[in-house]
């Protein structure tokens, strides 16, 4: 039973967080966070180190007790119905730390014994899904980080969760590993209907795999939106101009704003207008040596959204 009423079944809410706060000592680390995750979406949790991502995630998986607020996983209250709530969830918090003196298979058996209704067939299924069949009988201490990551995912998927929470899942992986992980996460959401919550401090990563993003800063969610919306607003063009002062002056009039960054000038991006700006510059005798669309860096996005607060 999912504890869901019929009306909500259409847009099933797998995770609902309301008024989440955490005070440690006298310092308030998390200042009241609210968001909801729907079935089958990949949700990004974006913020710099120290913004409260990890603390929030640890509250979501039950490692840290919130000072106030409620967390509901598939309708179950995490605090009052802990076994049911965590039963619908799989997670990896930070690195996938498993028992290194046991084999991969031994680890999975170990976790299977902590749940009900997991048989050997399910173990095999999960091992195959993460592509570890060849090395599953080896001790985990002989595994590479990528393999540990996969075993971590196998462990998280073992209990057929509806919600998967991954904290910095691509940390320490090589580029091909990162791509594989990304594809795998998309596959889980699209084909298996899982809701995936991914935290990251890398915008590019979030952009490539998430449907929606929450931007978190200093213990607050400053924005929840779809990736496309966020990027559209924040996309910029960088110009390399000769002479730079005159060009900047002109762009400021044309585009509304232009900032000097190093040897380039940054302006907002506008697909309709950009050709005309270029033309105006050339006509005014300014040589455009380079002109490129730039995805916003997390830093820019942050400066914009938090009004000057920088990443640590």
């Amino acid at each position, binding site marked *: 039973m999912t504890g869901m009423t019929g009306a909500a079944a259409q847009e099933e809410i797998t995770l609902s967080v309301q008024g989440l706060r955490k005070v440690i000592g006298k310092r308030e680390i998390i200042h009241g966070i609210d968001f909801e995750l729907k079935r089958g979406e990949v949700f990004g949790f974006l913020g710099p180190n120290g913004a409260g991502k990890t603390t929030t995630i640890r509250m979501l998986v039950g490692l840290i007790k919130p000072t106030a607020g409620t967390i509901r996983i598939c309708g179950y209250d995490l605090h009052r119905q802990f076994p049911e709530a965590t039963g619908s969830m799989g997670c990896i918090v930070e690195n996938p730390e498993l028992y290194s*003196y046991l084999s991969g298979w031994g680890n999975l058996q170990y976790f299977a014994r902590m749940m009900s209704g997991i048989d050997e067939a399910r173990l095999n299924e999960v091992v195959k899904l993460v592509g570890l069949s060849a090395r599953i009988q080896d001790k985990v201490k002989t595994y590479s980080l990528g393999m540990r990551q996969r075993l971590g995912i196998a462990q998280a998927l073992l209990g057929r969760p509806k919600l998967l929470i991954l904290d910095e899942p691509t940390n320490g992986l090589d580029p091909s590993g990162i791509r594989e992980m990304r594809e795998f996460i998309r596959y889980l959401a699209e084909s298996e209907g899982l809701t995936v919550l991914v935290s990251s401090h890398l915008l590019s990563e979030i952009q490539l795999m998430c449907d929606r993003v929450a931007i978190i800063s200093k213990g607050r969610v400053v924005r929840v939106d779809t990736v496309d919306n966020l990027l559209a607003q924040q996309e910029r063009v960088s110009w390399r101009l000769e002479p730079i002062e005159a060009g900047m002056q002109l762009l400021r009039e044309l585009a509304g704003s232009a900032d000097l960054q190093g040897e380039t000038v940054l302006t907002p991006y506008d697909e309709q207008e950009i050709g005309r700006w270029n033309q105006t510059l050339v006509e005014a005798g300014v040589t455009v040596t380079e002109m490129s669309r730039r995805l916003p860096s997390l830093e820019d996005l942050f400066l914009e959204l938090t009004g000057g607060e920088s990443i640590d």
Partner: protein
Amino acid sequence: MINLVYNEMVKITGKRRLLVVALIIAILITLFTYAQAQQAADNRERFGDVDWRIALEQRIAGWEARLASGGFRGDDGELELRIAQQRYYLDQDVNPAEPGAPTFVRGFVENGISLLLPLMMMIVAADLVSSEHGAGTIKVLLTRSVRRWRILLSKYLALLLSVSFIITLFGLLAAVISGFVFGYQGWDAPVLTGFSTTGGELDTSGVRIAPQWQFILMELGLAWFVSVVVATITFMLSVLVRTTAAVMGIMLACLIAGTILRTMVSSWETAKYLFMVNLELIDYLEDAAPPIEGMSLGFSMLVLLVWGVIALIVSFVSFTRRDVY
């Protein structure tokens, strides 16, 4: 719950903890067996010509004479028991100076109860919870759909199983290994027990003879009790302190302080409420005077029990409430 306990046992054996303990015990027993065999050989050389039967008969005759003349100040009952004890050796044709495996086991448990066995328990208990913090596996353990107190309970039950296993192994290995050298005779040799002290005087009114196997079982029972308490306290430290090395350090300091304090408690009376001063339970079965007046088997067991219960409560409260970072 059985599955959870099974999981914990998988981890304990996976880390080869029990194997290490078994090896240490086996090696120590072999060493002590060798040492005792050397000692026996030494004695034989020194008193080689004297027939032990004649010496024993002379001693019994002396006691009987004293008993008849009423010259013995103490309790007649005890002397009679001692005579009976010595007669057993004559009747069974066993040299009391060259005992068999049972006597070795008896002495070994007696010596091991205050330091060796607690150390073995420490090896198993010290990293039961702290290693999960150290390796980061606490995060996968506590995000299962199992409540925290059940996880901790399963760990504690696994610890109790390990303690019982180690005590059994300790007794068995001691008997088997020393028996190779000393032989397996003497299981029902008589042992005097039931001493108590009242008002600083040794009270022998309750003294009786117990067969040696029974006495060994009593010893092992007390050793199990002491081990469980030491393991429980180590378990608590393992919950409170997140590094295994610190747990080991604190526990070692306590145990070693205990052996030193035991010789000094006569001048510091309140020390009798410390658990490490109360570990030598077996001494109460024999005629050794307690370190402080007023300490008895019941008192020491009660002190240990209180320490154990408090340690367990602290462990559970701390483990179920704590935030894990």
